[in-house]
Every structure is written in C-alpha cells, then in structure tokens.
C-alpha cells in the first residue's frame, strides 16, 4: 500500500481568545488515501472547518505534522503553498464564494489565469468544465443571475478546472434545498468515480454523508469516529 495522499499526525491548531487559548484542533491523526471519498461530521465548533483549512494549505497548524502527497507542508513557503492550492487542491464552499461581477466562465477559468495558462486555452477548458456540471449555457451569467444550486455547480467547475488531486468541500450543500443538494452530490460523486478525485466533504446531514465511502466524526478538535460505510468506489 502506497503512502496516503493526506497524512496528519498530532495536528493542533489553537487560537488566542481573551487571554485564553481555544484549541480548535487538539491532536488530529488522520490518513486519507488517494481516491477516497470521505465525509467529516461533527457538532458545530468541533473543528471541521479548521481541519479543512489546514488540509487545504489555507492555514498553518500550530503543531503536529501534515504531509500532502508525501510533502511536508509546514516546510513550504507561502508562494509554494499558493502553487499547491492552485495545482493540487480544489475548494467548494458553503457560500459558493464566486467573485461577483465576473461571468461564470471568468470565475471558472480564474485558477488557470493564476497558473499562467494562455487565455484561449483557459477559456476552452473552462467551458468544458462548465459542460461537465451541466451549465455551459450559463457561461456568460454573473453569480447574481444564477440560483444557489447553479452557483455551487459553477464553483465545482472552478474547483476541478486544474485537475486537482483532492477537492475539499466544506458544507457544499449547507445553503441548498434537497433537489440542488442531490444535483451537487451527484456531480461530486461522478467526479470521484470517473476521474478518481479524492473528496473530503464536511456536512451536518446524514444523507449527504451517505454519498461517501468513509465517515469521520469530530468532537472538540479530535477525531472520535472513523468508519467505512461503503466499499471503495461505491457498490
């Protein structure tokens, strides 16, 4: 068995708060293999988003070790982290986080702009990504001209544009109705099955977690449960 794609050992993250320390992560040990589809559940404030930020190289842990694809992330510079986010990681957020006043197409191709891909090729790839989420027809629409579900699909297109190894989705259906939630989860699942993208999905809803193969539960900054709920790559 090869080394895991994501490997956390004794991860801690604390925030100072009025002279005290809040331990958002309090010793997290976690290994996620390449190609897994994992759900993270847990009460509000249990540290799920904090863990996602660390895994996504958006924040540095206070202590412990984190290896992404065998690379010790703590030793990288800020520029190297930016590069890593650009190439290896895709993000999907609860609030979509598309840039306003930019069309769906422009939003989707933005990671390619930062990757230095030339404009023509970037536009083609962005269009293909929008096609993949079924929104090629809305390529020219700005976020405020789309429904929440559509915006979330655009943000998935943006997350997958650079062919990342892992997509991190923090409550991707948190703001959506059941129909849109199902659409979004179907797309993520399909990505996982056809391209083998590793998926980590934070959710509060059991039926969303049910799309996944593995479920991790967190409490007070620790992992308290870790179970396989389905055989790998679905049954």
């Amino acid at each position, binding site marked *: 068995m090869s080394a895991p794609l994501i490997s956390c050992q004794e991860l801690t993250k604390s925030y100072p708060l009025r002279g005290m320390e809040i331990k958002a992560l309090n010793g997290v040990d976690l290994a996620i293999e390449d190609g897994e589809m994992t759900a993270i559940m847990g009460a509000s404030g249990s540290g799920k988003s904090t863990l996602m930020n660390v895994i996504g190289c958006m924040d540095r842990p206070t202590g412990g070790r984190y290896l992404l694809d065998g690379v010790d992330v703590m030793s990288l510079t800020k520029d190297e982290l*930016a590069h890593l*986010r*650009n190439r290896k990681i895709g993000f999907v957020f609860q609030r979509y986080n598309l840039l306003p006043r930019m069309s769906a197409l422009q939003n989707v191709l933005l990671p390619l702009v*930062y*990757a230095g891909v030339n404009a023509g090729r970037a536009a083609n790839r962005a269009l293909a990504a929008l096609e993949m989420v079924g929104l090629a027809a809305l390529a020219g629409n700005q976020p405020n001209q789309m429904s929440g579900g559509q915006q979330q699909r655009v943000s998935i297109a943006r997350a997958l544009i650079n062919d990342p190894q892992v997509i991190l989705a923090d409550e991707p259906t948190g703001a959506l109705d059941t129909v849109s939630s199902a659409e979004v989860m179907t797309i993520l699942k399909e990505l996982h099955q056809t391209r083998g993208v590793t998926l980590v999905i934070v959710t509060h809803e059991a039926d969303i977690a049910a799309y996944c193969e593995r479920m991790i539960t967190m409490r007070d900054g620790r992992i308290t449960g870790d179970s396989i709920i389905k055989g790998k790559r679905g049954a």
Partner: protein
Amino acid sequence: MSLKPKTLVDFSFQALKANKLRSFLTMLGIIIGVASVILMIAIGQGAQAQVMSRVKALGSNVMMVLPGALGRFGAGSEGTAQSLTLEEASAVARLPYVANVAPVVRRAALVTHGANSWTTTITGTTPSITAISSTMSTVEGRFFSPADEKSAAPVAVLGQTVWQNLYPNGSDPVGTTITIKGVPFTVIGLLQSAGASMGGNNQDDFVYVPLKTAQIRLFGITFIGLMEVQAAGQKEVTPVINEVTALLHRLHGLPPGAPNDFTVRNLSQILSTAQDISGMLTLFLAGVAAISLIVGGIGIMNIMLVSVSERTREIGIRMAIGATQRDILNQFLTESIVLSLTGSFIGIVLGVGAAVAVSAFAHFPTPVSSLSIVAAVAFAIFVGVFFGYYPARRAANLNPADALSYE
C-alpha cells in the same frame, strides 16, 4: 509565475468599473492636481515668456526718458508735457557710456491701403532704434536709413498686425503706397513679429516712420515724445542715468535742487525684477498645484484601504485558488496606479484645455510645456505607487483562511 501586466490591468478596470462613482471621486484629486500643475506652469511660463519678449524687444541696459515729472501714478508719461527735443537727444547721445539714443514720437492715426483701413500707432523714430531693440528687424524690405531721416522721406515700415489688416491677401507690401492721415507713404519694409507684451499690448500693431517725417509731415510738432537710451554695459546703467538726469536738468534751465520736469526710468531693471518675480511665481504656482496632487494621493490611499477591507473575502477566494502574495500585491498596486494614471490623463486633457481657454479668452499666452506634462504624469505614477503600496501590502499579507472567513 506571476500575473501578466495585461491581466492585472484587466482586473483593475473590472474592480474600478464596479464602483464607478467612487473611482471617479478618487481620481478627482489627481485630475485636479495634474490639471492645475499643467495650467499653473503654463501661466507662469506665459508670464515669463512675455517678460522675456519684452526684454528682447526693449534691448538690454535700456532706460527711458519721459517728459513730465514723476507723477501721481509713479512716473511721467509720453505726451503729458512737451519738454523733450531732438537737440536734447543729440546731447544725450554725446554723453560717455551712452551706446545708442532713439528719440520717439507716438500718435494714433488711421492708415489705409486701397480699400482697407486700420487705426494703429504711428511711431516716428531714428534708425538707431534698430541697434537698441533686437526684435526691430525686417522680414521684407529694409528699415529706414539716416538718409531717409535727414530728408524726412515719406517711407514707412509696417508691423505684422498692420500688414495683416491692410493686406488681407498676404501680398508683399514693399513698394506699395499707403496713406497715413491722408498723406501718401511708400512702404519700404515689414517687421518680424515681436509677440505680445505684458498686459496684452500688441507690439506688432505699429507703423514706423522716420522721426522727422512724423514731426513735419504728420503731426506738425517739433518736440519728441520720449527717448530710449542704451548704456554701453550693465555697469554703466547707473552712471548714465545720473549723467542724463544732470544734463537734462541743466538744459531745461532748472535751478539746482528744483524738481525735474522729466523722468528717467530704468526699464531693464524693472524687467529683470519682473523676470525674477515671474520665475518665482511659476515655482510657487507649481508647488501649490503639486500639493493638491499629494492630497489626491492620500485620497487614493484612503479608498484603497477601504477597498482592501471591503474585498477581504475576494482576496481570500483568490488566494484559495492559487494567487500568490505577489499576485495580490500587484493587483492592488496596479489598481491604484490605474486610478492615478487615468486621473492624470483626464487631468492633462483638462489642464491643456484650460490653458488654451485662458490664452483664447484672456489674450495671455499659456504655452503648455511637454516637460510639465511628463512631470505631472511621472508624479502621478509616483503617487499611485507610493500611496498604493501600503494598502496593497496589507492585502497581500492577509492569511488566506482568515481572509476567506472575513465577514
């Protein structure tokens, strides 16, 4: 790998368009600053150019002797008294250190050529005026000679304005006949343009005739209006003033200690002072205008700081999808440079337009120097970078996770 300049400029225009009114108001400081720098320098240089052209037209180390005592308005003026004569001018010319003396008579008169007529100033003087004033040279024909003067020949030399009005088709006036107060004159020369003088006096609106001709054929007088006296050098100006004053005092038969019935004015000195003052004025005006540019820069910094905090989430998103610190820094820096550059281009248009308007409506030359435009733009870029750097740096130093969760 960092973003291409074109991409950065695209981002900037996207952001600035999203907040058009605010962007415009932010630029206003730069617009006003640049426009006023250009206009103020143009006005200052216009004033300097006028002084310079007056100095050139007048000649160096020149003083003017006018009839009449130092009056209520500071000096005597031509025509208020009749106390100067041609003989006195000759006596002055014989004084040591006097290089040239030009006696002058001036009267307004109607001049006609064919069907065209024009009221202008007739100046009767001697050929020595050409030695004093460097602008007194002809582009067509010749100036009148001592022989013309001696014989009171009916010959005339035209200034550019007079020529343009009497010869609207632009034909060569030399050899043609004009009438001055009904008296026929042969045109023997056309002067080069001397340019406008201070106060908008047109120095080209003159007809020059020999002094004797003016006295006998036109005005029927024996006195002269004034004399221009040129000293041999700068050091000699003061001694010459003293000598001339003493000589005329004696020739006028005034008792010692009695007030003079004439005035000697040191024009060169007045003009060189005016030159210094107009130079200082230019600097002063440009300085005040430059301060408004700095104020404009502070406006940019203020708005960029607001913009960075308003767009913290956007910064977080961009970082999440791979923007480096340098990308974010460059993005905001470009935005403030685009603001100040766009502002300065609008400012250039306004400033140049205002300068043209001033010269058209106030009849005051306002030459816009390309140097002032270059300086204004360079300063605007400097302002953009200087005042944009701090907010941009702040944006770039944000922690991605914190920026993204910013409310």
